[in-house]
């Protein structure tokens, strides 16, 4: 494995959707090695590798596996979270499309560690092409006898951001509305069908073969001590070369944006970087000389999240950006907790008033208060995800918000900062008008 390519190693040279091609580069050898180990030894190795979860929270994968109640008489489940829905994130999709067998091999390793024979890969419903590729790869592996006694089911979601939240995902997989569960109990103790369950992101699981191949020492020599390995960074927005870039953890954010992604498109100026997917606080241009790893990003008041950077140029109005972001979270709020369900609507109303120039200074204060009354007050993090961007745009680009009030209109002119970039509010329909039959 070349140092900087684990997840997509070989995918540029070969068609790794084919089993034979994956095997030609040593594919499935690590699953065999894992199976030759006891689950205790394998978990110890994964813990030593200190692989941090790639889905957003960064929880050490090996530790999570160690928490699974393997002594339980119930079946143990491995669930792969392939519900990638965070705006800005498109890394899991590329891994599934181009290296599906690596994900499946990772599943076999993780399943062996937690003594599971049942694996579910929950893939978002919109990823139909990736579902087909993955299901075909799993079938090839099954026919070739590679899966052994492990059963892998690829299960399609049906369009709900919240199902990327692990307990909501379990609810959805069990055939209920995808609403998060109170915790504890945590999934390793009581997860799918009330049984011990390990849930990991696609990129986390797809990194496991590299850990076994390189060994703990080899793996932890890549990246930073607190965040070893590589990450597939999704870069989107106003850059010259948007796309996924697999880089060592600890690479500078400036290097990712200006070298790999080619800098700001059209020679314009950088205004903001949303570093972890749309749910996290944004950074100003002065803050981007930071190593891309969990701890360094956390130390400057935001989150590494899903390693998905949305780059915003100087044409953008931060109030409009906040409005578009909050409308998404309002739509995706599952409705279970009042602060999130009602609060996101309040924020949207306030932001619309501010953007249209009808707000007063009191409205700005109210907006900040409503944010504070949502943050930390719901079962899952969706409420936080709705307000963190708004709070950061409000605090860091405060003059712009005050200007909306003082000027009585958007300082970026007219309805929009870039002509027509943000759709009018009444356009966000998700399905034909919902006249639900009686």
């Amino acid at each position, binding site marked *: 494995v070349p140092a900087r390519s684990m997840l997509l190693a070989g995918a540029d040279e070969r068609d790794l959707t084919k089993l034979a091609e994956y095997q030609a580069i040593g594919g499935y050898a690590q699953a065999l090695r894992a199976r030759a180990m006891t689950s205790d030894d394998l978990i110890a190795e994964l813990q030593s590798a200190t692989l941090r979860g790639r889905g957003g929270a960064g929880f050490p994968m090996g530790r999570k596996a160690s928490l699974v109640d393997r002594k339980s008489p119930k*079946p143990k489940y491995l669930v792969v979270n392939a519900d990638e*829905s*965070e*705006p*800005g*994130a*498109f890394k899991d*999709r590329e891994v599934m499309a181009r290296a599906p067998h690596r994900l499946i091999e990772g599943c076999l390793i993780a399943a062996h560690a937690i003594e599971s024979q049942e694996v579910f890969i929950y893939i*978002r*419903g*919109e*990823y*139909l*092409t990736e579902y087909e590729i993955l299901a075909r790869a799993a079938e090839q592996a099954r026919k070739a006898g590679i899966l052994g006694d492990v059963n892998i*089911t690829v*299960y*399609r*979601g*049906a*369009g*709900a*951001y919240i199902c990327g939240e692990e307990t909501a995902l379990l609810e959805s*997989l*069990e*055939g*209920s*509305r*995808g609403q998060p569960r109170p915790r504890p109990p945590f999934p390793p103790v009581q997860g799918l*069908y009330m049984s011990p369950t390990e849930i990991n992101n696609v990129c986390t699981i797809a990194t496991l073969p590299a850990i076994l191949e390189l060994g703990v020492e080899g793996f932890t020599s890549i990246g930073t001590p607190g965040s070893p390995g590589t990450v597939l960074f999704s*870069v*989107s*927005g106003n850059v010259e070369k*948007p*796309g*996924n870039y697999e880089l060592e953890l600890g690479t500078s954010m400036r290097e990712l944006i200006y070298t790999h992604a080619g800098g700001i498109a059209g020679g314009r100026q950088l205004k903001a970087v949303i570093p972890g997917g*749309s749910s996290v606080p944004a950074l100003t241009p002065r803050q981007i000389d930071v190593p891309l790893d969990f701890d360094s990003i956390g130390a400057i008041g935001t989150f590494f999240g899903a390693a*998905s950077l*949305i780059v*915003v140029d100087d044409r953008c109005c931060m109030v409009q950006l906040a409005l*578009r972001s909050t409308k*998404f979270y309002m*739509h*995706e709020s*599952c409705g279970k907790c009042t602060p999130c369900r009602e609060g996101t609507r309040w924020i949207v109303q306030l932001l619309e008033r501010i953007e249209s120039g009808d707000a007063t200074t009191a409205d700005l204060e109210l907006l900040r208060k409503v944010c504070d009354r949502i943050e930390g007050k719901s079962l899952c993090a969706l409420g936080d995800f709705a307000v963190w961007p708004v709070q950061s745009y409000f605090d860091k680009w405060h003059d712009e918000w005050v200007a909306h009030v003082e000027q009585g209109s958007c300082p970026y002119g007219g309805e929009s900062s870039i002509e*027509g*970039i*943000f*759709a009018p509010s009444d*356009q*966000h*329909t*998700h*399905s*034909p*008008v*919902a*006249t*639900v*039959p*009686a």
Partner: protein
Amino acid sequence: VSTAEFDAKVRKLAAQFPDSKTAILPALRLAQEENGGWLDTESFERVGEALGLTPAYCQAVASFYDMFHFAPVGRHSIDVCTNLSCALSGAQEVVDAFESELGVAPGETTEDGEITLRTVECLGGCGYATVVSVDNRYRQFVKAQDVPSIVEDVRAG
């Protein structure tokens, strides 16, 4: 298809899972496909009957998800992502172009019943904006000038 055939298909789906209730999403998807792309009262009854659930339960689950529809839709769907990265890359121009090409607003279906246009949330193609999902297959890097040929393709297919 007949109720018996539908039941058989759904029971086969259900047999794959430790709990038959897990089959509700694939069963609803099947019911939607067989009902011209949307779910009506009878769809919930069929799914409920096949899985031993009430129609109300099936409707409650379906209504949680964006990919189920509860009113007639066109034979084809065009879903334009308008979330942050696509918006920053000009998604609104793409939406406007579809509106003028099709003569309908997002959420509406062309008069001939062929195409439903929607604006949708992030499709996970942010680096390849604007992403347009045509009958659940992604077109990427879509610009306003690509719209007429996409519509032509859809109408031909």
